[in-house]
């Protein structure tokens, strides 16, 4: 298990990461979601023991890692960067890099490379060089290169950012196969909630370098009925004590996401096209550390978070306990 405790990390004085505790447990399949600049890449670099935090500790299996992590510890955690870089040489040479660094003999290395190449379907690329590969192929080679060394923890920074959806599926299936074959914890950063919910067992949201409770809270695991309550694509599903109208063809178990910025906030129900009009009371308000947004949490039968401008929050005189109405269109609800 690799974990961060009391970590505050700064670049040139600017606080970029502020985490009391963050852990990737043995065998976990964890997604870290957040917008660009939320601190995801920095978090992964700290977890990969490539940088030491300005304050706080990084622990590997409960033992504090020295500020300059020795190779023996670094070898247990491997990071694939958002835009990975391949070294000079062929794909085969690249995939074997970490094995050579570990002094693995040629015969064993070739067998290990062969296994991973087969799993990721990289056979035809083996003799190619980096300038002969597409971005998606570079990404797959980088993942293969990282998996070849059989780390305990694999960290992936936006693993499908440069790949098409089909190869993204192939990549996640390959990871699943790897995890089925041996104990491997995977932690990937993504700005796409869809990927996070489709492939991860657990999700952490990062905003402005802190763990944010906002994103996961507007997410609901539900069972979508076949047929539907209204038209062909409009469905009404029960979430906690309320019903939410959703536009979707999907059926069965899904995750619904209500983007906090798509929620219209008012003091009273207003006539509008929104199919979801939920009245309740404000339970919490948080001002964004950067930007002018205010996160308004309200109990409307379930806990929902909406983002409004500071000006709007003031005009509506929003405060904890005040009555509030959240409205959003059925088409605003995302289905994963």
């Amino acid at each position, binding site marked *: 298990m690799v974990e961060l405790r009391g970590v505050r990390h700064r670049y040139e004085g600017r606080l970029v990461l502020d985490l009391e505790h963050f852990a990737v447990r043995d065998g976990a399949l964890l997604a870290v979601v957040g917008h660009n600049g939320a601190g995801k890449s920095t978090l992964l670099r700290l977890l990969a023991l490539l940088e030491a935090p300005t304050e706080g500790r990084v622990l590997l299996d409960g033992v504090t890692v020295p500020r300059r992590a020795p190779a023996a510890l*670094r070898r247990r955690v*491997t990071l694939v960067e958002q835009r990975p870089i391949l070294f000079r040489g062929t794909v085969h040479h690249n995939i074997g890099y970490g094995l050579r660094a570990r002094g693995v003999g040629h015969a064993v290395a070739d067998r290990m490379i062969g296994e991973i190449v087969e799993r990721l379907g990289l056979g035809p690329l083996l003799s190619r060089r980096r300038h002969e590969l597409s971005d998606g192929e570079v990404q797959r080679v980088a993942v293969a290169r990282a998996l070849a060394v059989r780390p305990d923890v694999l960290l992936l920074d936006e693993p499908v950012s440069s790949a098409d959806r089909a190869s993204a599926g192939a990549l996640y299936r390959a990871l699943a196969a790897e995890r089925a074959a041996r104990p491997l914890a995977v932690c990937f950063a993504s700005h796409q909630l869809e990927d996070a919910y489709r492939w991860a067992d657990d999700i952490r949201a990062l905003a402005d370098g802190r763990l944010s409770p906002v994103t996961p809270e507007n997410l609901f695991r539900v069972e979508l009925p076949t047929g539907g309550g209204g038209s062909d694509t409009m469905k009404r599903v029960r979430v906690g004590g309320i019903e939410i109208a959703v536009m979707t063809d999907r059926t069965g178990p899904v995750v619904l996401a209500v983007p906090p910025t798509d929620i219209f906030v008012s003091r009273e129900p207003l006539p509008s096209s929104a199919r979801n009009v939920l009245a309740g009371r404000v339970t919490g308000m948080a001002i964004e550390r950067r930007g002018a947004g205010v996160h308004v949490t309200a109990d409307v039968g379930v806990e929902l978070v909406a983002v409004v401008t500071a000006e709007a929050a003031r005009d509506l005189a929003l405060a904890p306990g005040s009555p509030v109405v959240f409205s959003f269109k059925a088409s605003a609800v995302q289905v994963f």
Partner: protein
Amino acid sequence: MDFLAEGFRRAWALLVAGDAEVYGIALLTLKVAIVATVVACGVGLPLGYFLATRRFWGRRAALTVVNTALAFPTVVVGLLLYGLLSRRGPLGGLGWLYTWQAIVIGDVLLALPIAAALSAAAIQGVDARVRRTAETLGAGPWRTAWTVAREARFALAAVITAAFGQVVAEIGAAMIVGGNIRGSTRTLTTAVALYTSQGDFGLALALGLVLLAMALVVNVALQALQGRGSG
């Protein structure tokens, strides 16, 4: 014009005839240049890598010192070294003044800042992901350094060329600590200066042409190496 043409004719004759003095001076120059370049780059390239990749207190000051040393006048280096190596100097006991070893030391002092400063710049120019990737794949410090250096190979080859160029073309230190002694410490540059002042333009020109040829061969050889290493 006749004077120039006559100079070239004599230079050519000396070169073709395999004049012992010309080739003796050329060989000494080559020996001094190779030893000094190897030592300067052997120390300077790792130093440049260290300055480029490690964060430590005083790093900025160290980089400033190295960059300032790039512009160190050769005669000043020669003068300081003379003070150290002369009989009354702290290193006088070595008896190295007016030997080829003294010229090597002077040349190393002049080429070292070039090797360190330019290689630091070259290494800083390598994508930071290369080093991180090597480290996350489990490479130790040496393998990581080698991997980063491979990515900067063109720039580092240029650094070696520049260091060699400095050493082979330098005259101030070689003159002061070498003494320009015939058959012992006379290098191409000191000889050219001497023979020109003595009016032997042809001999000076012949030596100058050898110097040019030497620089050309080194550059062509390094370019050939670079061409082989692409991809």
